C-alpha cells in the first residue's frame, strides 16, 4: 500500500501557527487490489495532538463538522461517511461539543462500476477544525490509488476493522434493542438491557432546520426534544447514536 500522505496543507485563515494544524490526515484503502465489481473501503485517518479535538458530523453548539470531498473515476459510487461514535466535550457556558481526541478514522464504502478494470485514482479533500482553547482550521488534499483487477488483495485490515467496530450499527443490524416512541417533535428511545443510568450515551445529529432542544437520560431511556428553527424548512431526518460500553446503534428519526 503506497501512501502519498499529505500532499499539501493549506492554511485557510492565516492563523498564527501555520506550521502546525494540530491534526494530520492520511488516506487509506482496505485493499491494494479490488476484484472487479467488488466494493471496498476508503478512510481518512486523523492523528490529533494531545488535548486537541476535531468534530463529529454534528459539532454541537460550536465548532465545525469534519468534511471529506471524494474524487473518484466516473461511475464509482461512494457511500455517506461512516462516523465512529464520538466523545462529548463540555465547555464553560454550557457549550456542548461532539468529536474525537487522539485519533479517528472517517470511512466510506466505494463501489466501482462492474466493467471497470485498471488503476483507479482516489482523491480526498479533507477539512477539519482542531480546537483546544483556541481553534485552528485544517485542510489536506490527499491522493492514493487502488487497482481494480481479477482478485482481491487486502490491506490495512487491522486499522479498518478497529475503526469499523466503532461505527454505530444501523438499528436493524445492531444487537441493541431500541424502542422508539414519537410525540410531536420529541422522541423517547428505550434501550433494552442497559442497566445503569450513567452508562447510556446519546449523540444527536439534527437535520437542517432543526435544533436539539434537550436530551434527557433516565435509566435506559433517553428523551430527545427537537425544535424547529423559526422560518427554516426541515430537510431530512435526525440521527441518534445511542448505546453504551462500545455498543451503539444508529437510529434515524423522521422530523418532517
Amino acid at each position: 500500500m503506497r501512501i502519498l500522505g499529505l500532499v499539501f496543507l493549506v492554511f485557510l485563515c492565516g492563523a498564527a501557527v501555520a506550521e502546525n494544524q494540530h491534526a494530520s490526515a492520511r488516506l487509506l484503502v482496505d485493499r491494494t487490489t479490488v476484484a472487479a465489481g467488488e466494493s471496498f473501503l476508503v478512510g481518512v485517518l486523523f492523528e490529533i495532538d494531545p488535548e486537541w479535538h476535531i468534530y463529529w458530523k454534528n459539532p454541537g453548539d460550536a465548532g465545525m463538522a469534519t468534511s471529506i470531498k471524494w474524487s473518484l473515476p466516473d461511475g464509482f459510487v461512494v457511500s455517506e461517511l461512516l462516523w465512529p461514535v464520538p466523545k462529548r466535550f463540555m465547555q464553560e457556558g454550557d457549550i456542548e461539543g461532539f468529536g474525537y481526541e487522539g485519533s479517528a478514522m472517517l470511512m466510506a464504502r466505494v463501489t466501482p462500476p462492474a466493467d471497470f478494470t485498471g488503476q483507479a485514482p482516489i482523491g480526498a479533500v479533507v477539512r477539519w477544525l482542531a480546537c483546544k482553547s483556541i481553534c485552528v482550521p485544517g485542510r489536506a488534499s490527499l491522493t492514493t490509488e487502488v487497482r481494480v483487477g481479477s482478485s482481491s488483495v487486502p490491506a490495512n485490515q487491522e486499522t479498518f476493522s478497529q475503526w469499523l467496530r466503532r461505527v454505530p450499527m444501523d438499528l436493524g443490524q445492531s444487537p441493541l434493542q431500541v424502542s422508539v416512541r414519537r410525540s410531536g417533535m420529541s422522541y423517547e428511545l428505550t434501550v433494552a438491557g442497559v442497566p445503569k443510568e450513567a452508562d447510556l450515551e446519546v449523540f444527536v445529529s439534527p437535520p437542517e432546520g432543526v435544533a436539539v432542544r434537550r436530551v434527557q437520560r433516565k435509566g435506559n431511556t433517553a428523551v430527545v426534544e427537537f425544535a424547529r428553527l423559526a422560518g427554516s424548512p426541515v430537510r431530512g431526518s435526525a440521527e441518534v447514536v445511542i448505546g453504551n460500553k462500545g455498543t451503539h446503534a444508529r437510529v434515524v428519526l423522521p422530523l418532517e
Partner: protein
Amino acid sequence: MLRYLVAMLVVVGFSGFSFAQAQAELGKKAPEFRLTDSAGKQHSLSEYQGKIVVLEWINPECPFVQRHYKEKTMATAAKQFSDKDVIWLAVNSTSHAKPEDMTKWVEQYGLQYPILMDNSGDVGRKYGAKTTPHMYIIDRQGVLVYQGGIDDDPSGDKPNRTNYVVKALTEIANGDSVSQAQSKPYGCSVKYK
C-alpha cells in the same frame, strides 16, 4: 414597618435577581445590558430604544471571525444598514480579552462600530451566545427577532451564501417581518470564564 421594609427588600432583591437572570428568547423583549466598549464608552440596550440593534459575538482569536473580517462580512452589512437606524454592536465575552487589543482590531479593520467588553460573560450567557460569530437582531420595539449564524456557510466555500442578518435587516427595513428568525450559529465556542 421593619417587616414591610424586609418584604420590600426581598421583592427588590428578587426582581433584581430575576432581571439579571432573564434569558433572551426569540419573539420576547431582549434582555437589557450595560457594557463598556474597548474605548471606554458605555452602551446599554435601552439607550437605543426605537432603533434596530444588531449584536455580534466576536473573538478576534477565532479563525471563523478572522475569515469574516478578511471578507468584510460584518463591516459591509453594518455599512449597508447604517442609514436605516441600525446600530451594530460587537460583544466580546472572551474571559481574557483585553480592551487595547479590541481597539487595535477596530483600527485594523476601520470598524464603524464598537466592541463591547463582557469579560465576565454575563451578557453572553444571558443571550445564550455559544459561538463566535453568533448574531442577534433586536427590533425597534426591543424584541429579539433573529438569533443564529451570520450565514449558511460554515466552511466558507459556498458560491451563493445566504447572509441571514442582511436578509432579516432588509425585511425589517421593508416593513416586513423576519422570515427566517433562527439558524444554527457556527464558529468557535465562546471562551467563557
